């Protein structure tokens, strides 16, 4: 039971981290109809900038500065890249962001090399906040939960309570009307893209010390992020939240419990072959839950899309 | 009308369509006879396009049925309805802009001429298809534009091409959604002649704003107001119908004069 609680908390950290990426991606998708394939690359940039700044002035300024820098880079990408490609249609846009993801990974390797960076959590947070049955829960993870929640609440406040939030929400549903009302929609696009990428960068800075800062970090998280927002329903912020937490817990619990396929097969009445290793179905019999953990999101996505092509909470036709 | 022997080309029974809470089509009954030229008119937002989309399978009815030659087709997909002999054009020009005029027409022909999903025929070598496409090009007077990309044609030409694609498959029910919208007077006249020519011996259903066109072309007219048909009759009778006058036609006719 205590292990269950620990896993709930760990899954919450993963899920909220995922949501920080998904919320930005969802905002961008809702506005521009383009799925930003390079979103996780901005997360990676956040981690690297955070690391670089932390080597000069420490972790905390990095947490502030890195997202700002990345946000500006994101806005520039929108202004000079995406806007240009936009007129060619959605498929070239998607290809552009795909190319951008490749490019950012190369650029990161160009400047920082291929090895893992020694990005450390700040010293003040290097203690165990509490521990449950011998399992330490680092203070840093508590801090991650608060940051993620904080970002979400600020976002929610801006979207629902401020004027600019109203305009953005209106632009989500009726971009032409908003344009006609005299708002500078391209400017809003650029701003949303910048803010979305900056949020990814915050996620990068706080995840870098825990999940590692290395050139493969974007790819590792990237496809999961798309899967999450597709499951949640493209363009639905609440869907993204639900799906992020779902996937966070799914992955945590899949890794945490050693359920064996063999037990399941026996339970449904099959008998385990005497010499499993020689059997044609040996892979099936020896399969465990942690082994398939990372592919569960993909499986879930396919199932969701087959049953509900618009995702769990999605409504927008694509 | 319900007592005729031959089934009607199109028959709608208590057809309804809602989007969320808004009921756009509120129980429409309509019968269009075979060979008839039928126009649907009505003020903006009356649901004419929605009705079109319901008949052609783009939308699924919330309630009620659509009959095509006496067969219930409600809820079928557009391609299934098309295969039963109904073809339509669109209010916004809807062609294949990256293909040539000739190819646009040919796309309209392939299914009906039995090629379906064939990957064992080469399209260029199917003389029947090419000849038929040339004939249609001639019908819509676009032989000279044969090899132009459809995307570079003038607006009026694109509208004509759209009609060419629509009739190419040889469907016996043709539905045209505002075929003369946005055209000049001379272009409109030309288009009406063209429509009359290519829909000879076919059932025609047309949605139109231009009353001149409507009264010129239609055998019968239905007036759709707020998702309900308030009258279906000959042009003359509709013109004199008091309800129609009040609801819609008065102002529309004034515009015409």
């Amino acid at each position, binding site marked *: 039971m205590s292990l269950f609680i620990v896993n709930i908390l760990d899954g919450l950290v993963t899920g909220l981290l995922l949501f920080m990426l998904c919320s930005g991606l969802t905002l961008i998708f809702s506005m521009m109809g383009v799925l930003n394939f390079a979103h996780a690359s901005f997360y990676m940039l956040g981690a690297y900038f955070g690391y670089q700044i932390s080597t000069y002035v420490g972790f905390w300024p990095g947490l502030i500065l890195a997202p700002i820098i990345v946000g500006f880079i994101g806005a520039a990408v929108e202004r000079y890249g995406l806007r240009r490609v936009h007129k060619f249609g959605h498929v070239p846009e998607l290809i552009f962001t795909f190319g951008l993801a490749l490019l950012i990974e190369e650029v990161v390797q160009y400047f920082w090399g291929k090895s*893992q960076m020694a990005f450390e959590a700040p010293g003040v947070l290097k203690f165990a906040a509490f521990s449950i049955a011998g*399992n330490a829960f680092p203070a840093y993870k508590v801090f991650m939960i608060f940051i993620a929640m904080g970002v979400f609440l600020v976002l929610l406040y801006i979207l629902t309570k401020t004027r600019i939030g109203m305009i953005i929400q209106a632009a989500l549903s009726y971009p032409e009307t908003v344009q006609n009302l005299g708002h500078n929609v391209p400017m809003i696009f650029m701003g949303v893209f910048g803010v979305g990428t900056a949020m990814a960068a915050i996620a990068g800075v706080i995840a870098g010390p825990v*999940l*590692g800062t290395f050139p493969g970090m974007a790819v*590792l998280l990237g496809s*999961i992020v798309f899967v999450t927002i597709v499951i949640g329903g493209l363009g639905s912020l609440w869907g993204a939240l639900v799906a992020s937490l779902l996937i966070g817990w799914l992955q945590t*619990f899949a*890794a945490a419990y050693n359920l064996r396929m063999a037990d399941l097969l026996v339970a449904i009445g099959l008998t385990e072959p005497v010499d499993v290793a020689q059997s044609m179905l040996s892979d099936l019999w020896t399969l465990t839950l942690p082994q398939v953990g990372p592919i569960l999101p993909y499986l879930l996505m396919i199932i969701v899309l087959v049953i509900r092509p618009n995702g769990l909470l999605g409504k927008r036709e694509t | 009308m319900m007592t005729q022997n031959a089934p009607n080309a199109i028959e709608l029974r208590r057809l309804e369509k809602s989007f969320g809470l808004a009921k756009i089509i509120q129980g429409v009954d309509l019968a269009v006879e075979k060979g008839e030229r039928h126009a649907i008119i009505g003020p903006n937002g009356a649901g004419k396009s929605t009705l079109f989309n319901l008949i052609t399978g783009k939308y699924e009815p919330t309630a009620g049925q659509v009959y095509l030659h006496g067969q219930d087709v409600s809820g079928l997909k557009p391609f299934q309805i098309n295969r039963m002999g109904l073809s339509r054009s669109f209010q916004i020009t809807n062609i294949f802009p990256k293909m040539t005029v000739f190819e646009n027409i040919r796309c309209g022909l392939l299914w009906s001429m039995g090629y379906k999903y064939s990957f064992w025929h080469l399209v260029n070598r199917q003389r029947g298809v090419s000849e038929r496409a040339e004939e249609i090009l001639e019908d819509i007077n676009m032989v000279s534009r044969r090899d132009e990309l459809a995307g570079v044609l003038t607006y009026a030409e694109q509208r004509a091409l759209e009609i060419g694609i629509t009739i190419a498959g040889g469907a016996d029910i043709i539905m045209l959604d505002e075929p003369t919208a946005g055209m000049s007077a001379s272009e409109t006249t030309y288009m009406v002649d063209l429509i009359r020519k290519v829909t000879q011996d076919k059932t025609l259903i047309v949605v139109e704003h231009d009353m001149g066109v409507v009264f010129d072309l239609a055998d019968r007219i239905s007036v759709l107001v707020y998702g309900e048909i308030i009258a279906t009759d000959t042009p003359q009778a509709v013109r004199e119908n008091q309800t129609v006058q009040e609801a819609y036609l008065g102002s529309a006719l004034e515009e015409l004069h």
Partner: protein
Amino acid sequence: MNRFTKSLLGAAFAGAAMVGSFSIAHAEGTIKIAFIDPLSGPFASTGNQGLSHYKFAAEELVNSKGGVLDGQKFEIVAFDNKISAKESLIQLKVAIDQGIRFIAQGNSSGVANAITDAVKKHNRRNPDQQVIFLNYSAVDPALTNDKCNFWHFRFDANADIKMDALTDVMAANEDIKKVYLIGQDYSFGKAVAAAAVKFLKAKRPDVEIVGNELHPIGKVKDFTPYARKIIASGADAMITGNWGSDMVGLGKAVIEAGFDNPIYTYYAASDGITKTFGEAGEGKLKLVMEGQLNPPVSDRAAAYTAKFEKQYPDYDIGQPRIANVIEMLAKAINKAGTATDMAKVAYALEGMEHDSIWGTKVVMRASDHQAIQDVHILAHTAKDVTFDFDNSGYGLRAESTVKMASADSATTCKMKRP
């Protein structure tokens, strides 16, 4: 269209014509060794580090001493295989075309499997241009067992041998009662787990294996749930064969979750890993490896290491065995009296005994072409470290040594000799 297509086809294939033009001019009187390993992509730093050591060793141990035979020098020719089996085979063909007869590769057992298979086929199909495969790092036991062949020589201790040595040391530690095994879900990870189970059962039947699991390779973002399981199992030692970011991720998560017992590993050093662990790994991380840098075994070894560090300050001697590869190859060529008849060189290498610069005897066992040598258990520490890794102040210091590990281990290899 036609004229257009034709001219394009022409242009395209004219481009293809360039392919043949990049053969590199031969320098007379050198013996070339093709180094086929990742020089770009995520594993480039490991590849470049190996390449640096090869170049250094060739210069330091052979060329500066007058070369082999009648003064022929060693030349290392680098080929980037992008850690892909397909690219490796292409680069292998390119190397053979350039007249190179010695192939060195080490990163990834998957690639090694592909190369050994390709070399076997190539040597059968082209008896006039046979090649020898010098495997300096790939440790999948199968390479010297079921999949062994005459042209393949392994200079590293394989996964089984390392586990044999590791469990010898663990068996002597009475504090260890519960062991947790975790590894990457592929042939190597499975081999490590199987060997651990086998040896622990034989040497310490009282030790309980409280966990034995595989996780997907390179796909786990967060190892925390695994760390929780390990803590919850009450293990007082864990063994993992993980490498790269899987090693760092697992190690950090486990330490962070409060694990305070030894973590026995194969590849938790250098390439940024030592630096990343830093203080956290002190007293916990243990490595099983051939070759010891700290404390230096001899003045010669110390001088060699110091010179390398001076020349390549960003790299470490992460794979000491490379020195053995170069020295033993030079010896074999001298003994065979030829650098062109590969069968003779291979026979000379087979069964060779060599006194390594790292203070051990190395025997290239004839029955399976597996090098038998001393294997060490090294601790990740900052204390008494002469040569650190990643310029981090932390390095590996020998804690215990198993002499000529697994010298009499069985092999399933049925060597077919020409």
